């Protein structure tokens, strides 16, 4: 067999050593991303991975691809600008629950609405790790911490159903430890036109050691993906938060902007000003 030398997952890994704690779910996500990219066989230089601030937002530098580690909460607009300006690129936006749902919450809603053909990967560990363990929008109301003693008392944000309501075209949940499932879901998310949202439950072993038990709590969604948002919403709202799989696969056309292929003569733009 004379198969061409294909790109391996390891070709998408950079030499930089992650700062993540050993045991962190994000290592699994890193592996899954490299495997998904190998599956797609996209050259590393045609891929851009964009992030904000937080533990998981360190991921671009650990990959061999173009990357941008921007400011807290603004990864989606960074990725949006890049994808609109350079539609031929594969753009992944990655980050955590604080970055994406708290400080960047507004961008999350509008990125779902806008339905640009990018994939948004949120490593959800229900905590701010880089600032030493404060509650995030997805943290349970009774989780005790120094900043919110006794818990926030706030109902957790539900990213999947909010993505769905806001118009995301692909909604999935995976568990980081399920490397194969996360890889497959990412491949499908990247291939699916429009805005794809993948929530990866990714344990924080330092501030939420109890999340090590997630691996026995997760289970594959016992249903096939639907393209009906109402059905998807019902499923998501009634599951236990540990249902994994592709929960919605929409049929909306991705955002596109008309643009001329030929550059107009510059003098045409000044003609309306002439007296």
């Amino acid at each position, binding site marked *: 067999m004379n*198969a061409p030398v294909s790109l391996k997952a390891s070709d998408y890994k950079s030499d930089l050593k992650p700062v993540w704690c*050993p045991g962190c*779910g994000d290592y699994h996500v890193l592996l899954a991303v490299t495997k998904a990219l190998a*599956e797609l066989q996209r050259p590393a230089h045609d891929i851009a991975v964009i992030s904000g601030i937080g533990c998981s937002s360190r991921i671009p530098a650990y990959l061999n691809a173009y990357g941008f580690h921007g400011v807290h909460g603004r990864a989606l607009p960074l990725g949006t600008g890049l994808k609109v300006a350079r539609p031929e690129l594969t753009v992944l936006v990655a980050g955590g629950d604080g970055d994406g749902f708290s400080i960047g919450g507004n961008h999350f809603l509008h990125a779902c609405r806008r339905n640009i053909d990018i994939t948004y990967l949120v490593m959800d560990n229900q905590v701010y790790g880089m600032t030493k363990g404060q509650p995030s929008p997805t943290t349970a109301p009774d989780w005790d911490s120094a900043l919110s003693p006794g818990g926030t008392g706030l109902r957790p944000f539900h990213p999947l159903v909010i993505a769905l309501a806001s118009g995301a075209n692909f909604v999935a949940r995976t568990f980081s430890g399920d490397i194969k499932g996360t890889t497959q879901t990412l491949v499908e998310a990247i291939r699916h036109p429009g805005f794809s949202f993948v929530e990866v439950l990714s344990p924080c072993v330092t501030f939420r050691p109890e999340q090590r038990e997630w691996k026995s709590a997760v289970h594959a969604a016992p249903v096939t993906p639907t393209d009906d948002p109402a059905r998807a919403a019902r499923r998501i709202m009634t599951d236990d938060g540990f249902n994994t799989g592709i929960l919605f696969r929409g049929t909306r056309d991705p955002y596109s902007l008309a643009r001329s292929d030929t550059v107009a003569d510059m003098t045409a733009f000044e003609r309306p000003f002439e007296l």
Partner: protein
Amino acid sequence: MTGKQPKVLISIETEAELLAHAHAIEQDALERYRMLADQMEAHNNPVLAELFRELASHEEKHAAEILSRAGNIALPDLRPSEFKWPGVDSPESAELDLAHYKMTPWHALQMALRAEQRAFAFFDHVVNSAGDPNLKAWAEEFRDEEAEHVELVERLLEKYPEPEPGWDEDDDLPALQD
């Protein structure tokens, strides 16, 4: 994740396919050990960093051996989804989620033991399901090697008793980053 193989039927059909899987098992295992070695290095656990590098170098040797033993058999160029792993991961790859910055050689070798056991189970399954005698012969060879590796790790483990509870205690609080 344990050393036990999930009960999923896999069907390896040709020698070349088996060799590609056997090679990937070693290659993945070595990359995983290197990843762990890097983690230990970054988190100032030099003993474990060295141990994981040593484990990685064993796997590297095995990977090279498989390639040379394949001789004229061209290995198919498989994408991640084309590997017929019974579980969520390449069988001999150590479990990343069980890593800890203060982990001891006992923990690392327990990981390695389970990894070798999973690899053994993988080849054992091929042996039992292979129809083609050549395929079966290759699978037996690999399985027997994995059995040796299991024994080797078990012997190593004799030198490292299980650490007392509290091995992971740290008086310093986690550090603030960005």
